[in-house]
């Protein structure tokens, strides 16, 4: 009998149907991937197994775990199962830990609760599991607080909590989505080895086929709460018999077509960055001790030509966003010069920057967080128009907004909608419309597609490529995702510890990285083709 057996699970939250007759089975020692886009019901399936659904949710069907009927079980029985036989790891490591409790307390809590072990035994087990997940107590004492750890380290603590009692089933809900690719590879590796050591079943939830192709034994593809496709991983992903699976697979490897008409060979150097440096002063450790300083960006120089599309790749914390902020003049360098069309911009006052800002705009990662929810689309998109020297009439303004909306593929009729009435992909289109309304020459995009589903992300990449071709806008893409860099950039710079460690044509660098940082990124990047080739090779 399967370890976890879900049969005909339907779930309604209020009047809204979230899951429709979902079937899914996991054997001990099996890694089962549950794949789908946001809103497909992946997380709700996981929470159904944990029985941690919101109060107004109604589940029907059957969930059997190791002989227990989950849907029929009492809350007290579920409390015994959770954390003991079923462990769960969540997506957002930054918020998944209680900020006021030490990591030791948080790991120990579950151990004590379920085993009733003495303080000494609990502490020993806590040390052992933290050591196992890569946080040895010599370097990471139990008295550390979550805020003293990085995102990847926090995720290790969450995994330690989930695996402390060697559960029979581990549920990991997008455990690596918030991490950079190198950390992602490490965490997936850790999960995989824990599963093999203890013969656990793992339900791995992800929106990314490339991520699961590497480690999952079997796959269930979910869409709008219904199972589209399921079976053995390599078979499902090589045959791609189901149209939706094929669509997901194609979207995750999508490379936009780029016209060569506006390639960067025209008007010369657009942006010039010379020996730029940004030093952050930390706080004093004692009253008279010197402040610690941190060089976030260290002696960076590069040129960006008109119409050129450049990627700045690197792991989280490497200084790439700091560099981007200085380029768009939201922050000032502590050394060096930044010039747009050979005009220095790093020392200009906010007033003098206005004409400059018209020519460079920015697109951020989170399309929802970067809009005021109380403003309509028209007002949001028209925002940068205040940068123009002569104010526009209402009619002119509207026509500019309409043109911008049309260029990004949104109907001008939607200008009276509020941000929440748009989907995630449409919101990112709005952000792009806002960026292009002043007809800038440069767009700095900070992880512009990493919060989007694969199919939407493919569309947005197409849009970027199209605008580059039609309007000749130069891009600086800040990303840790090499697929994005590969898709739409001509050149790439690899950043590590505040320095540019490698640069060159994108294809060349990604095929054959020479720097350690570049190699680490390339090796860790999930790639559907490579993963499948490797697995088919293993299977013979």
């Amino acid at each position, binding site marked *: 009998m399967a370890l976890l057996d879900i049969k005909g699970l339907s779930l309604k939250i209020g009047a809204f149907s979230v899951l429709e007759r979902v079937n899914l089975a996991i054997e001990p020692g099996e890694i089962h991937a549950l794949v789908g886009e946001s809103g497909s019901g992946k997380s709700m399936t996981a929470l159904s197994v944990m029985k941690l659904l919101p109060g107004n949710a109604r589940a029907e069907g059957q969930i059997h775990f190791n002989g227990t009927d989950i849907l029929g079980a009492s809350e007290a029985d579920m409390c015994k199962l959770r954390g003991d036989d079923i462990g769960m790891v969540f997506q957002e490591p930054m918020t998944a830990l209680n900020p006021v409790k030490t990591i030791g307390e948080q790991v120990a809590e579950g151990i004590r609760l379920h085993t009733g072990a003495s303080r000494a035994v609990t502490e020993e087990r806590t040390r052992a599991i933290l050591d196992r997940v890569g946080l040895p107590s010599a370097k990471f004492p139990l008295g550390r607080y979550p*805020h003293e750890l990085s995102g990847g380290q926090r995720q290790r603590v969450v995994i330690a909590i989930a695996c402390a009692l060697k559960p029979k089933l581990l549920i990991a809900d997008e455990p690596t989505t918030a991490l950079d690719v190198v950390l992602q590879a490490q965490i997936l590796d850790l999960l995989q080895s824990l599963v093999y050591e203890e013969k656990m079943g793992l339900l791995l939830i992800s929106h990314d086929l490339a991520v699961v192709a590497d480690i999952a034994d079997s796959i269930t593809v979910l869409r709008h709460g219904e199972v589209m496709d399921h079976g053995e991983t390599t078979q499902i992903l090589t045959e791609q018999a189901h149209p939706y699976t094929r669509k997901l697979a194609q979207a995750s490897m999508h490379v936009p077509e780029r016209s060569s008409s506006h390639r960067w060979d025209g008007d010369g150097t657009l942006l010039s960055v010379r020996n730029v440096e940004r030093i952050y002063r930390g706080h004093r450790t004692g009253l008279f001790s010197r402040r610690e300083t941190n060089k976030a960006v260290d002696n960076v120089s590069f040129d960006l030509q008109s119409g050129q599309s450049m990627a700045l790749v690197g792991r989280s914390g490497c200084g790439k966003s700091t560099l981007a902020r200085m380029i768009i003049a939201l922050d000032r360098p502590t050394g060096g010069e930044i010039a747009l069309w050979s005009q220095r911009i790093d020392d200009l006052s906010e007033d003098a920057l206005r004409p400059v800002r018209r020519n460079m705009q920015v697109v951020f990662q989170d399309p929802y967080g970067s809009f005021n929810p109380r403003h309509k689309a028209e007002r949001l998109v028209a925002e940068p128009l205040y940068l123009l020297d002569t104010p526009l009439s209402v009619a002119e303004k509207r026509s500019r907004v309409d043109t911008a909306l049309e260029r990004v593929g949104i109907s001008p009729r939607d200008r009276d909608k509020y941000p929440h009435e748009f989907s995630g992909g449409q919101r990112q289109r709005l952000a792009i419309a806002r960026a292009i309304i002043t007809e800038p020459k440069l767009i700095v995009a900070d992880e512009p597609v990493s919060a989007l589903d694969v199919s939407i992300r493919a569309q947005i990449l197409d849009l970027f490529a199209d605008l580059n071709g039609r309007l000749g806008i130069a891009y600086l893409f800040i990303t840790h995702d090499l697929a994005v860099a590969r898709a739409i950039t001509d050149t790439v710079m690899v950043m590590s510890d505040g320095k540019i460690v490698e640069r060159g044509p994108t294809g060349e660098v990604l095929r054959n990285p020479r720097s350690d940082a570049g190699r680490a990124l390339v090796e860790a990047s999930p790639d559907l083709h490579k993963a499948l080739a490797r697995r088919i090779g293993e299977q013979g």
Partner: protein
Amino acid sequence: MLSYASKRVLIGIATMLAASIVVFAVLEVVPGDPARLMLGMNATEDAVRALQEQMGLNQPLLVRYFHWLGGLLTGNLGRSYTYAVPVIDLITERIAVSLPLALISLALSTTIALPVGLFSASRRGTISDTATMGAAQIGVAIPNFWFALLLVYIFAVTLRLVPAGGFPGWSAGMWPALKSLILPSIALALPQAAILARVTRSALLDVLGEDYIRTARAKGLTRRSVLYRHALRNALIPILTILGLQFAFLLAGTIIIENVFYLPGLGRLVFQAITQRDLIVVEGVVMLLVATVILINLLVDLSYAVVDPRLRGRT
């Protein structure tokens, strides 16, 4: 931790100094010459001038300020114009009523509000939650002097359980003194408790929506133990903030309540001093109140760091 604490203390001292300047300046521009007031309308100019000289009122402003400030630091707050006794004696005598009153009220409001807030938050959306919060809403809306009159009518006039007003003094024994503080502290505490209960509930509900609460539930903790072990401590920051603000309001509230109950406390002292232009008493009491509020804020700031480890490294 040390730098955070020392910075708070320095800020507290600076605030005290700023407050002393404001208090001194405001009372300086308020019309009414204390010397003339003390001597009455029929006094001769010479007599007034003589008294002004004796009281040091004719000295330059800055000299008087520093003289006054020096006095503050050494505990010499000057002599009351009307009572002709040292202000510090007046204050110590009155604080023996006001401080217990404020502390009892604070203890009372906290012991009522925290359990009520917890109760309501753990039963969110149920009838008991709605009923409790409805009651709290009424508690917020009722002015404390009206509530005080109601209490007097029920417990003093009708049931005759406690005195309707006045204070026998601590020399009359612990119980009679406490008895006369019961109604005033309830009248002060209840509206505060209502506000605090609402804050506690909403702070807890905010925290209960956090990701780490889900992590705790996934560990196998029951709803109840999650509430006590994970939610409460995180919700303490907004609760402490309100608690600190409330103490300041309690001190201000005593002015009204002491008048309703004829309690010889600081509130009545400062009220009388204002009507009699006894500015030096007003200055003394106001500085004491300011110092108390700053001290409370300091304690609240320091307790943040105890509750939240993230603040300990900050400056």
